[in-house]
């Protein structure tokens, strides 16, 4: 029951990231789950004092991004911008990579390692948007979806390359356990709940109170309108990807101590996030969060009653959900190509 709740919270965080990314960029971000796995496994690598593989991915993406920008600069005959472009695109990723490379063998304290993990994985998000999606911003949802699947394939392959086929379980942040009559409450659950709440409040504050948050919301409502108002949709895309990557990494760090994570565990977790997000029609944050709790509970109940068919039950539950949604909101949006 409590397991279901904590899993549900993690799915909820992922669902929120998915809804955010979809609203802002129209991308169904299948590889969201890979960020979760990357987060958990990066932390595990840091724990063992090894250099986490995503550092190389970060550098590779940064080089790709820089190369692509240099190419357009040279083609349009603006060699003056080269230095600025180099600095802008390379400085931060290289700094982060250097920091991680330096810190990895030091076996620093757990909170520092968590911070490093979050930093590293979050940095992947916007770069991925820049390299892969930016030039495709006007493509149809379908094309974007297939591209996402491409990223998923590549990231799973990379995950195996970086982390190996073994699964890891990271140590928990807080080992205490409390007994309430028949109910055992582990501290890790408390950590998950509190972190999720803090994150939700922070996200809400950012989206309501800051200019960037408002820009994101504007882009979600109307891309063209936002662009005409001087909001860079590309910036909005990068921000939403950064948030998504951050949420993914955080979820990974949170579930790392509770279940063993393999390089390909992320996919199923991400898909469960999708099931949850679909309950909210990929548009509503509160509904997506409720949906996630439902998915988490369904999963823990079905693993209790019919553990063999756990996944089948969870994913098949999408069908009645879709049926229900088709009656509640039969959206017919025409996508003109």
């Amino acid at each position, binding site marked *: 029951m409590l397991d279901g709740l904590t899993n549900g919270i993690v799915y909820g965080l992922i669902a929120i990231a998915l809804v955010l990314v979809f609203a802002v960029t129209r991308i169904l971000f299948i590889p969201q789950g890979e960020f979760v796995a990357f987060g958990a496994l990066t932390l595990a690598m840091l724990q063992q004092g090894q250099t986490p593989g995503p550092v190389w991915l970060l550098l590779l993406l940064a080089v790709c991004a820089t190369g692509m920008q240099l190419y357009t600069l040279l083609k349009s005959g603006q060699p003056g911008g080269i230095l600025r472009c180099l600095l802008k695109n390379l400085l931060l990723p290289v700094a982060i990579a250097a920091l991680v490379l330096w810190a990895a063998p030091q076996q620093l304290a757990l909170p520092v390692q968590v911070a490093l993990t979050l930093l590293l994985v979050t940095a992947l998000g916007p770069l991925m948007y820049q390299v892969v999606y930016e030039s495709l911003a006007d*493509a149809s949802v379908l094309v974007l979806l297939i591209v996402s699947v*491409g990223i998923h394939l590549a990231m799973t*392959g990379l995950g195996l390359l970086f982390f190996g086929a073994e699964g890891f379980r990271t140590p928990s942040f807080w080992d205490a356990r409390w007994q309430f009559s028949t109910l055992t409450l582990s501290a890790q659950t408390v950590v998950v709940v509190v972190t999720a709440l803090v994150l939700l409040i922070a996200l809400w504050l950012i989206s309501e109170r800051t200019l960037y948050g408002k820009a994101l919301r504007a882009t979600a409502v109307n891309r063209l309108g936002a662009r005409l108002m001087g909001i860079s949709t590309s910036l909005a895309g990068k921000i939403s990807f950064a948030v998504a990557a951050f949420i993914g990494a955080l979820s990974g760090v949170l579930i790392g101590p509770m279940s063993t994570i393999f390089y390909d565990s992320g996919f*199923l977790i991400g898909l469960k996030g999708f099931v949850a997000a679909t309950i909210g029609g990929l548009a509503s944050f509160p509904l997506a969060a409720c949906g996630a709790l439902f998915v988490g509970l369904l999963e823990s109940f079905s693993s209790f009653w019919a553990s063999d*068919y756990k996944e089948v039950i969870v994913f098949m539950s*999408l069908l009645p959900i879709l*049926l229900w*949604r*088709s009656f509640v909101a039969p959206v017919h949006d025409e996508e003109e190509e």
Partner: protein
Amino acid sequence: MKHMRTPHRLLLALLLALLLLVLLPTPLFWIIQANYIGLYALVAIGLVLLTGIGGMTSFGQAAFVGIGAYTTAYLSTAAAWSPWLTLPAGLCITGLSAYVLGRITLRMSGHYLPLATIAWGISLYFLFGKLEWLGKYDGIAEIPSLQFFGIDLGQERHMFFLIWVIVLAAVWLSLNLLDSRAGRAMRALKGGRIMAEAMGVNTGSYKILLFVLAALLASVSGWLFAHLQRTVNPSPFSLAMGIEYLFMVVVGGIAHIWGALLGAAVLKLLADQLQVLLPALLGDGANVESIVFGVILILLLKYARGGLWPWLCQFGTRLMPSAALPIRVQHVSTLARRAVPTKGDALLEVTNIAKRFGGLVAVNEVSFGVKAGEIVGLIGPNGAGKSTTFNLVTGLLHASSGTVRFNGQEISGLHSRAIALRGVARTFQHVKLLPSMSVLENVALGAHLRSRQGFLRNTVNAMLHLERQEEQELLDEAAHALTRVGLQQWMHAPAGSLALGQQRILEIARALCCDPLLLLLDEPAAGLRHLEKQALAQVLRQLRESGVSILLVEHDMEFVMQLTDHIVVMEFGAKIAEGTPAQIQQHPAVIEAYLGGIE
């Protein structure tokens, strides 16, 4: 058209190549490769129909392959059925599950289907792997081989014939299907749904049809797979394989049946090469293949979205330019026409219709009528609610209140499809046509409802090309409409290559093909030059003579005044005046609306 067309020539060439492959002493390795390519191609053809033509996508095709394979595996071992009987059983199960899945998801916008198919693919994979009677993850072994009049098809060389006969049949049927009335409707699903509905196409049914067809092709592939391998286990039917099928189609060319074959071949050969090459380069253990596939997929979609086939075609046409198709000038229509109501009878009666979008009242209690054999102009400044009124009459939007009666029947609340069936055709303010299809095909879409065949019968006939007589009649009708509006010399050009004014005329020709009693034209003269406008006015007058009534929105006052019998003026969603052109020109409220009041 007795001479052979390009697709059929290609089909013949492929047949010869395949025959050569088996007749020559080809090593068994290549025969086996060809067998697998054929199996993949079957699934890929379905995906081309679904994704490239219909604009939907599925990651769950591998699961449908799995249903086909497991059905035959179980029935031919545990139940000891003849393998030839398990094929229809597998098709039934697959078709039914695809139908249910499609009914649930296709009602909603596009991205739910791929999500649902992902969930479907994963669920089935786990189900195959967990069910005791399906052998769990070990699967089912010792599946009997196929027997064909005493010939054992267990041998790869024999199986080759069966697989490729089926693949060629699938190609032939799909090509036939696309080159037909049903095919035009299917090609309209991607990016032209509203327009197709207004032409009376039941887009929902065609979507489900495509989804079921794709699933059935996958199921056949699964049946063949089970009897080729003689054993099944869950892993070839996982989601990863579903993704790989989509990958083949993207590589080969997503909008072309031939692209499916090309993609299947390229992927199978590439995957084999990679499996040898990559571990040698990078050391094994790592799943580098999926990285390479993922990256290629992204690069292709970023830089060559059409895939390999269109690229090859470019070469082909440079080597062998295809002969220009003959222009068909058609002066008479042969199709049966509707009975025309008596001139002067009330045809369209709009009573107090209103449309509110939240707090905004776009159309406010507007009433007017169109009599049979009359041209009525609907004019007013921008934002007056004219196009909204059009959408209310044609069923694209539903009125918040009020009624619309047409030819004595109430039509408010009906789908645009049902309204089209009753004889209302329209054009759009923002041209809606299918730019890559030819002008003739675009216009023929308008004649969709002129077919006398039912939905399924028409589809089956189209696949077998048994409906050629009727197809000719429909195309003749389209050619007739084009001749009528003067676009006949462009009939084989892609519709997107026409100038905007011509595209509007094309829309009129398409609407004419519906055999309308009432034609609604939204700014037909916009973008036309003076002489073209005169010609258009002439066409519209002829139509009026033949009994068609016309309701038109237009900003060119000269055009409206010389053509119409009656004018309705709207401003801010309300009707402000109504009368003959002469009365309207003198009407104080109209003058104020257009020129501003005198203070």
